[in-house]
């Protein structure tokens, strides 16, 4: 994948290009966009085997929905990288910033196109991790750290729920005849292609609702649905381009994407209930919170959660227009919200503040930005003829029809709450959208200093998004007069098809949108929204204060629970007992656990200790072992550290001689050198320690003796057991047969080791992968030493 390569090259590029790295990254993103664009109109699956033994593959599937998310990720990516070139001017850590942002874009493309459950999960978590790094970009700020940790905890935990759901799906899928590959999500022979038998099998095993809820939790945490919305406002600590990219156009869309992707599989009445309620609740609650916001980015964050709620609610509606709502609003929301975030970045950058109360009358100084804001904010408000109007109209239509249908079929009148809540939530959406817009009009507060014009690199991306939003909106106007925006309608239509349940739902027709030409219940709903909103706007301040008062009540705030739990864990006394900071405690716990587990396993397996035979015990061996034992006793009795270490090395050297006698020269050589080095290091460290600590008290001595005895017993039993069992030595014979130079060989061969030293051949050839792991560990140890010592010197350990 191109973006990952780009990410790897970004630090290098930064050295060469400096701040121009932004444009390098934008180029990478543009290349991705071109690649994605070249896939338009195609449809199908590409499979690369990954873990064949488990049937896991790196399968990529292309359809409308995947293309939409892919286009958003790479297209908004291009704009955001360009914008970063202006915004990040003179900021620290740019190489890291661009590398992470590119890696994020790669994972997001992966999420969009992955057709394998495991691959999807991996890319999903990669977006969480890179988002963590980006939110915490300003490493030294407490708020950044808090926000990064919070988003990581919530989204990764949600991802784990999702993984459980995936695995349940996989287990069920293995028993469904039509499913050829039980990890394959979409494409031929996949889970979704066999939706009906899958649902039947899930129901038969009573797993349908658990899977639905688990996948739902994954989507809800990622897309910041109530009550998991709390991470999104904090995530605004990230640099603004990141907020625009991750937290409006892409990462939060991953959850929505998941909902859209699973919709054909899981669409049932339960689905409508879960996602309809979840979406509408989120839409309303977060819209209300957005009104209470005091910071423009906070306002946008809550509004993002609110609009994601709208999309989820749309996908939740089964009978009518559900998929249309979701698909179209994903596009619309990405266009106007990314534009608004970029505008917020411009405002914060040029006016020097993000507080809503301190801003106003910016249109004089930022005329172009004001124009973009008019288009985007009115789209967000759902005012015709701007783009948000159409998708909101779809939602009203969908919830109205769903409710009418449910009630007509004997459902409870409570279903009418759905349209009522939708209107109620939309009123608040209208309110905060207008509030955002009014930053640019009215009186300019005196406290606001001079506002500079933003650099072109910042204006252009925002303008591009604004123009696109405008075009989508005007497309609806022209469509009213019979001129349709064909490519767009076809594209959204294909996106919609990805989420349509098999067997059709309601009336199945091609996607189109236009201004309403006759009065319908849903048009009245829109009118009510706008009317009430306009009437309520003059009382904005009072509404806001009222909401803040309610918000102040602790048990109503999900944040209160989050903080309570994390702080509770942080302070709990368990940590003091377990983490004493005393090396002795850790060593005791580790050794005892090891001994206990090993001995327990032997007991559970019911092994018998074999008789000890003394055959082949040469006199020389006896002498060596005797000296070793003497050394060991001397260590225990040593009066000081120095003599203890010296006698310990007697033991070590005896072991080396033992190896020589056992004809293992390699081992002996290694043992000798290591022994020497360890001795040297020991002596160096001991130089700084007191010569002797004094006599330990009896209790401690007894405890230590117990631990030592347990470990010794475990090792002895293990050695006895493992040497007594002599298997047929298949692998050793293989190594011996293939390790050396074959009798007949050409000048080049690669099926045998070709070495005389079989130990080394095993290390570097047959078992090279293990060795690679080991040297990685060695390198990691060195890195940890550097980090530990460097961190201590910087006084970062608390």
């Amino acid at each position, binding site marked *: 994948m191109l973006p990952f390569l780009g990410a790897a090259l970004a630090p290098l590029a930064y050295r060469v290009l400096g701040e121009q790295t932004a444009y390098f990254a934008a180029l990478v993103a543009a290349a991705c966009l071109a690649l994605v664009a070249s896939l338009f109109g195609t449809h199908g699956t590409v499979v690369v085997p990954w873990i064949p033994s488990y049937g896991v593959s790196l399968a990529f599937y292309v359809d409308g929905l995947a293309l939409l998310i892919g286009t958003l990720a790479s297209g908004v990516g291009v704009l955001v990288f360009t914008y970063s070139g202006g915004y990040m001017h003179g900021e620290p850590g740019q190489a890291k910033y661009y590398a992470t942002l590119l890696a994020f874009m790669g994972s997001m493309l992966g999420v969009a196109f992955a057709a394998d459950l495991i691959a999807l999960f991996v890319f999903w978590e990669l977006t969480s991790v890179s988002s963590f790094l980006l939110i915490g970009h300003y490493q030294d700020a407490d708020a950044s750290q808090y926000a990064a940790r919070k988003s990581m905890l919530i989204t990764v935990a949600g991802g784990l729920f999702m993984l459980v759901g995936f695995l349940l799906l996989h287990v069920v899928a293995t028993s469904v005849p039509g499913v050829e590959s039980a990890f394959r999500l979409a494409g031929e022979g996949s889970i979704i292609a066999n939706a009906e038998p899958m649902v039947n099998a899930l129901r038969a095993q009573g797993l349908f609702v658990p899977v639905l809820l688990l996948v739902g939790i994954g989507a809800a945490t990622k897309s910041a649905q109530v009550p998991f919305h709390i991470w999104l406002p904090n995530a605004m600590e990230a640099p603004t381009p990141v907020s625009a990219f991750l937290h409006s156009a892409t990462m939060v869309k991953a959850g929505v994407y998941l909902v859209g992707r699973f919709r054909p599989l899981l669409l049932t009445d339960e689905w409508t209930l879960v996602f309809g309620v979840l979406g509408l609740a989120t839409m309303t609650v977060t819209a209300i919170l957005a009104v209470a916001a005091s910071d423009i980015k906070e306002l946008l964050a809550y509004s993002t959660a609110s609009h994601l709620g709208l999309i989820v609610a749309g996908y939740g509606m089964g009978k009518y227009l559900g998929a249309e709502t979701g698909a179209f609003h994903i596009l619309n929301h990405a266009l106007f919200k990314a534009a608004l975030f970029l505008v917020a970045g411009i405002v914060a950058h040029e006016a020097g503040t993000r507080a809503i109360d301190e801003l106003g009358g910016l249109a004089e100084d930022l005329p172009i930005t004001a124009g973009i804001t008019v288009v985007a904010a009115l789209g967000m408000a759902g005012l015709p003829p701007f783009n948000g109007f159409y998708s909101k109209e779809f939602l009203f239509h969908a919830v109205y029809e769903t409710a009418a249908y449910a009630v007509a079929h004997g459902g409870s009148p409570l279903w009418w709450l759905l349209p009522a809540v939708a209107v109620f939530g939309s009123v608040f959406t209208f309110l905060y959208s207008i509030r955002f817009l009014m930053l640019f009009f009215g009186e300019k507060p005196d406290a606001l200093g001079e506002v500079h014009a933003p650099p072109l690199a910042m204006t252009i991306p925002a303008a591009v998004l604004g123009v696109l939003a405008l075009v989508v909106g005007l497309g609806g106007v022209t469509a009213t007069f019979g001129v349709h925006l064909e490519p767009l309608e076809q594209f959204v239509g294909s996106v919609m098809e990805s989420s349509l349940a098999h067997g059709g739902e309601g009336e199945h027709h091609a996607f189109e949108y236009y201004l309403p030409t006759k009065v319908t219940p849903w048009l009245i709903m829109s009118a009510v929204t706008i009317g009430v909103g306009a009437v309520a706007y003059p009382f904005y301040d009072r509404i806001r204060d009222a909401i803040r008062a309610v918000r102040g009540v602790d048990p109503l705030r999900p944040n209160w629970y989050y903080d309570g739990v994390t702080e509770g864990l942080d302070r709990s006394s368990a940590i003091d007992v377990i983490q004493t900071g005393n090396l002795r405690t850790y060593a005791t716990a580790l050794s005892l656990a090891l001994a206990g587990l090993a001995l327990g396993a032997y007991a559970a397996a019911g092994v018998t200790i074999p008789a000890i035979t003394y055959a082949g015990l040469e006199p020389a061996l006896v002498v060596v072992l005797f000296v070793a034992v003497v050394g060991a006793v001397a260590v225990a009795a040593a009066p000081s550290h120095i003599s203890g270490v010296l006698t310990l090395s007697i033991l070590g050297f005896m072991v080396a001689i033992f190896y020589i006698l056992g004809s293992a*020269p*390699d081992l002996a*050589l*290694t043992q000798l*050198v*290591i022994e*020497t*080095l360890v001795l*040297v*290091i020991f002596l*160096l*460290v001991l*130089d*700084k320690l007191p010569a002797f600590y004094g006599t330990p008290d009896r209790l401690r001595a007894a405890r230590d003796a117990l631990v030592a005895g347990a470990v010794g017993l475990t090792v002895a039993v293990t050695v006895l057991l493992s040497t007594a069992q002599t298997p047929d030595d298949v692998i050793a014979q293989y190594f011996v047969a293939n390790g050396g*130079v074959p009798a007949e*060989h050409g*000048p*080049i*061969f*690669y099926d*045998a*080791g*070709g*070495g*005389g*030293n079989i*130990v*080394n*051949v095993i*290390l*570097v*050839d047959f078992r*090279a*992968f293990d*060795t*690679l792991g080991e*040297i*990685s560990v*060695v*390198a990691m*140890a*060195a*890195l940890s*030493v*550097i980090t530990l*010592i*460097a961190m201590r*010197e910087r006084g970062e350990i608390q």
Partner: protein
Amino acid sequence: MTLDREPTVIARTVVRLVVPLILVTAIALLFQGHNLPGGGFIAGVLTVTAFALIYIIFGLDYLETELLDRNPGVRYETESGIVREYGLVFALGLAVAAGSGIAAMALGFPFLTQGVVFLKGLPIYHELEVASALAFDLGVYAVVVGALLTILAEVGAE
């Protein structure tokens, strides 16, 4: 980690003589590892032993002042100074080891497949066996040397 008192002339002279010997032995062990006792790991540890001797007898800064001919950097500073070079050594080692595996992949074999080439008609040697495993072993050697020296220098600086 230098000694409190000046090391004796005997110690200095012996170390001067012994260190090159150890290094040559280490390299011999590295290259003969394929057919005779030896290998990347043991050679790496042996090399570190040689450096440890230098550190103990001549002090921590000797390498930098005498061999690299520059002023030693500020202690505890990991961004510069010799620790950074040690870091480079083990990073390079990892890259070589992993790269030797990827090279096999590029030729169409599974990751880390090793091959052997016999070169004939060379002067002196007549026939020389070159194993691709040697590249991997070099990586192991570099990682061990770099990592252990990093630890030694960091801990020793305490």
